[in-house]
């Protein structure tokens, strides 16, 4: 009895412990509950921010319905949904190898943007002067090279001197942005700094649909990256470096080489995403060509636990929210920034839910019960 009393007296109100493991079903039900709570809070935010909902509360049903409408009401919207998901997924996939070795590449935005910029640069100077097929290949090569360059610079310094990669890659984003505005001033003599759609350098249209090729490329990339990370020697080395640099050194992995090699790959894939934006849809470049997807990609990759297959789901979820919220801002006459508010709220809940998957919460009295059980 005295043991019980002592256990109770010492015990804090809340005690946390790391879970040894959790069943897949339980983990997913925690995540789904989190998303549902997030959606509920979005409804509250709608009451606070949207006047049309404030005035007639029964419109809240319409508010939720519009989420689905944004991506599925017409086939054009659905294809837009697929294409945008593919581009976002491509950027997230690009970041994944780096994240797996705990290299926090926050520079996806910049690496993608220089990809767009150099593809458009090739198009601008050579478009119409050489055959379209060769132009497309040159654009691809330029985008890959530029992305790889943008990714490998921070990697070299990190590998050699341990320079903080999060901050370095973050700064590289802005250099890329101003590089774009520099070239826009040079290319557009009128001073308006907006480059119109270029005529050449467009990815071929398959079966009357301009988006299919992009989607196919990214699906193939997802499978390839999954195999690369899961079943090849390179993928294994990345995981070991991510788990423990000391272990990597001990078993003879040259971690500097792995970091530099992986960041070249990561940057190159960002460049590929840039190419898809440049040749697949935009055919022009602005400072906002990537539109923050480099940052969203970080969240997509993290939500998918750096698993390419799970990222299929998470990128689709984010894009669904994105297009749904855009539809809402259009239908309800709210500022388009509402999109970010809704995505932000849902993200908070998903981010928070990871805690309950990794840790177990015990309230006071837990030890007492455990002791009773032991006595029995």
């Amino acid at each position, binding site marked *: 009895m005295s043991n019980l009393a002592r256990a109770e007296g010492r015990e804090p109100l809340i005690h946390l412990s790391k879970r040894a493991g959790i069943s897949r079903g339980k983990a997913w039900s925690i995540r789904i509950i989190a998303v549902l709570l997030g959606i509920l809070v979005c409804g509250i935010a709608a009451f606070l921010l949207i006047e049309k909902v404030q005035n007639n509360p029964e419109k809240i049903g319409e508010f939720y319905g519009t989420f689905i409408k944004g991506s599925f009401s017409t086939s054009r919207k659905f294809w837009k949904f697929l294409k945008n998901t593919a581009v976002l997924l491509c950027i997230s996939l690009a970041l994944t190898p780096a994240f797996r070795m705990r290299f926090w590449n926050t520079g996806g935005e910049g690496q993608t943007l220089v990809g767009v910029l150099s593809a458009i640069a090739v198009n601008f100077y050579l478009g119409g002067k050489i055959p379209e097929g060769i132009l497309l290949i040159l654009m691809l090569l330029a985008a890959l090279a530029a992305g790889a360059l943008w990714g490998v610079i921070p990697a070299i310094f990190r590998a050699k001197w341990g320079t903080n990669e999060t901050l370095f890659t973050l700064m590289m984003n802005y250099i890329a942005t101003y*590089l774009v505005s520099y070239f826009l001033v040079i290319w557009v003599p009128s001073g308006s700094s907006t480059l119109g759609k270029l005529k050449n350098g467009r990815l071929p249209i398959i079966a009357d649909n301009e988006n299919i090729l992009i989607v196919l490329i990214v699906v193939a990339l997802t499978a390839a990256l999954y195999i690369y990370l899961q079943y090849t020697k390179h993928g294994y080395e990345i995981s070991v470096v991510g788990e423990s640099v000391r272990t990597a050194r001990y078993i003879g992995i040259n971690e500097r080489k792995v970091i530099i090699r992986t960041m070249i790959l990561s940057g190159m894939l960002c460049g590929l995403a840039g190419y898809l934006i440049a040749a697949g849809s935009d055919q022009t470049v602005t400072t906002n060509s990537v539109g923050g997807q480099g940052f969203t990609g970080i969240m997509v990759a993290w939500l998918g636990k750096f698993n390419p297959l799970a990222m299929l789901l998470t990128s689709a979820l984010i894009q669904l929210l994105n297009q749904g919220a855009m539809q809402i801002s259009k239908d309800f006459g709210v500022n388009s920034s*509402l999109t970010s508010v809704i995505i932000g709220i849902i993200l908070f809940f998903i981010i928070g839910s990871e805690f309950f998957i990794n840790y177990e919460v015990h309230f006071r009295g837990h030890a007492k019960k455990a002791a009773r059980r032991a006595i029995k």
Partner: protein
Amino acid sequence: MNIWLNFLLDSLAFGAVFVYGSTGEILTEKAGHLNLGIPGIMCMGGAGGCLFLSMVGQSSLPPFLIVLVGIFGSLLFSLLCGFIYSTLTITLRANQNVTGLALTTFGVGLARVIVNKLDPVKYLTSTKSLFRWPFADRTDSIQYMGVLFFLAIIIALVSGWVLFRTRIGLHLRAVGENPATADAVGINVTRYKYVATCIGSCIAGLGGLYYIVDYMGSQEAYLSVEALGWLSIALVIFVLWRPHMTILGATVFGVLYSVGSYLTNVSWIKVTMATTPLLKMLPYVVTIIVLIVSSIRNKKENQPPASLGLSYFREER
């Protein structure tokens, strides 16, 4: 006034935005938390201030009270953001980069939705001169040296003093360097992290208010706060995590940011349109160079806090 002196004062005044943002971020980073939500927090701080000001801006309250209400609104909103961030990263041990980015997404969006609805006449026109007290009547750059400008300088100096000259600062730095050791000597790690992050957010939020209502004093200003937030994070590296140095560093950033438009006044330097983006790129390039040089020299006091970006769980070995 001499045009170059005016330019320097202007850069100093503009730099106060970065002083707020960076000082807030330094306090947070010293507690071991890389808060990439600072741009969102600055936007929200500005939005909160504008929202409260729009309620009292045209009332008959005494001027200093109106200013205080604005500051209070700004503090309230940024505290809310700081609290969301701390709950997720400190108590729930979420990934700091992801949480910060989500907070920036959320904050920038919400701030735009809020400020977009407000009437600029109410929150701006009548209050701008109050914030610029006592220099509201000046027409040169001294007009920006108002209440919030001096508050920025004071906050930066006090933060520097607290961080490097007091026991509390020593404890805070210990928490950021090695939370397990700090915990072992009896420092309440969780409390230090929470307080530092929330105070840091409040300070950063004031930067947004200062930029929108005082320095720019225009109704489109709220759209460009985000970019300044990212620049503030860069400035933290540039000044090597020293709050009192942000005043100097921010002025340098201010000079680099706006030198393009002043150079057109000088006949012997030929400035083309294309130079401006390159000049605006400079703060980031300089930051990267500082980051590289400090990591190569590897002097202990110039490094980022050792546990920056890592969550602390006591029972983990």
